[in-house]
């Protein structure tokens, strides 16, 4: 199908992932199918250990599916995919490199044009409020700033698809809200398709155009809920919007019923 390139950014079909150890085998994901349209922001929520992170890693080509298939921008995923940006739970910065050089690692590994990558890095540093910290080492930064650096690095090569694995999980509530607002702005300005794994229902609804709810292990898709809110979002406004309340309650119930099984 030649037109898959235009109407599907990520296509997951009948995906099952089993991990085998010497004694047992665990099913991390069970028959998961998910289609993501370009420019969408998909929030994935689910209880701990439901295979959310595994789903992202399969899409990135870091973990091979046991059965089923994944394609990214119409291209089947068979190994690590270069067309994505990945932001990890921990910032995963190189502690011997300053902020700017950490961001530019992406360019070095990909052999990008140095001058252009430099300009792009400076723009991202400005965009995420890291100006003045270009030479600071990771240990000199707070957790929130480290995650900003990781975000810049994931966006440096302007990936059409950005995968984020609980990037704000370790941050305090205030910093988290701020980074959420920034991520919303970046998403709107870049048009990147984003898949975000999170534990926070509020974060999922605030950021997503769609929230995907998963069941406990083995991970299945329980429900996909459209978030009927404008693209540009403000925390105070969204929190008081009745849609927000309805959705978070609905998701909490879904998670609760899934948990009790």
């Amino acid at each position, binding site marked *: 199908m030649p037109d898959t390139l235009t109407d599907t950014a990520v296509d997951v079909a009948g995906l099952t992932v089993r991990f085998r150890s010497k004694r047992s085998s665990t099913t991390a994901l069970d028959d998961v199918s998910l289609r993501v349209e370009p420019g969408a922001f998909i929030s994935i929520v689910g209880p701990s250990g439901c295979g959310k992170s595994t789903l992202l890693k399969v899409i990135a080509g*870091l973990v091979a599916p046991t059965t089923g298939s994944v394609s990214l921008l119409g291209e089947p995923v068979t190994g690590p995919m270069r067309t994505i940006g*990945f932001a990890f739970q921990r910032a995963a910065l190189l502690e011997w490199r300053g902020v700017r050089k950490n961001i530019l690692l992406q360019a070095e590994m990909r052999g990008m044009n140095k001058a252009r990558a430099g300009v792009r890095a400076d723009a991202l540093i400005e965009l995420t409020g890291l100006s003045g910290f270009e*030479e600071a*080492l990771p240990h*000199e930064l*707070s957790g929130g700033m480290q995650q900003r650096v990781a975000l810049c690095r994931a966006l440096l090569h302007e990936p059409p698809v950005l995968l984020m694995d609980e990037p704000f999980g370790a941050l305090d509530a205030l910093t988290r809200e701020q980074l959420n607002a920034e991520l919303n702005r970046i998403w709107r300005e870049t048009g990147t398709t984003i898949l975000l794994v999170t534990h926070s229902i509020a974060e999922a609804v605030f950021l997503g155009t769609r929230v995907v709810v998963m069941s406990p292990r083995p991970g299945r898709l329980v429900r996909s809920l459209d978030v009927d809110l404008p693209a540009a979002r403000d925390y105070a406004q969204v929190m008081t919007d009745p849609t927000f309340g309805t959705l978070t309650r609905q998701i909490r119930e879904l998670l609760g019923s899934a948990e009790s099984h």
Partner: protein
Amino acid sequence: MVTSKDVQPADRPTPPAPASRFDLGARLLRFLDALWRPAIVLGALFVLWWIASENEWMPHYLVPTPGQVWDTIAGDWSSLMYHSYVTLYETVIGFLLASVLGLATAVLIAYSRTMDKALYPIVLFAQVIPKIAIAPLLVVWFGNGLAPKIMLAVLIAFFPVVVSGVAGLRSTDPELLELSATMGASRWQTFRKIRFPNALPHLMAGEKVAVTLAVVGAVVGEFVGASEGLGYTLLLANGNLDSAMLFAALFLMSLIGILLFVVVEVLEALLIPWHASRRTATPLTTS
């Protein structure tokens, strides 16, 4: 239109002063601060030695006075310097070879499962063999020249380099390796930009042990069969009951060890100024 000015990060401290990381004055102060306590202990021991030897609590042929040792060093200056040079040469070459071979072995072990299974047990087992006991064999095989001394230095210094290198290369955060994969990095890029720099703190700790062991290797090599070097000087002095010369040789050996240790220490400071063990400044933020 929302601009970056609308959202001000809350957790934003002031940028760090770039000079703070390489403040020479602070470094010197820290060095002197670390020095004065051991200096007092050493000074006390030195005074005790002086009093004991000057009052002949023990005969001079067993414990010479500091003056006698000094006179020996000054009197035989050129010959002692020559022997020191020989030992230093053997030690440095041995240490460098051990570093290169040790690192290469560590890379093989860390990267290849087969090598890990085939080589690592042998490296560990070889460590059980007392290297010093091999010295006579090396002399029989390679003669009285520099080769057996250098080889002994290599053999002794090799182990800590391999073990620290393997530990360092294996300590890479798996997330960093996954990150590298999403960037489409080659194995070589991942090694050069991530795994190797990440292994450096471990590796340098091993190098510091290795350099002091290399001195031991060179000296023991000289004990077994040599016509030059501080080990030879020491053995000769021992045979002549020339305790002043014996002390002089010991003193110079220790000096070589300390000197080389400091060189590796400085190298470490230059290579990994970012590492936690080398930080002078405290973090700017607490979260």
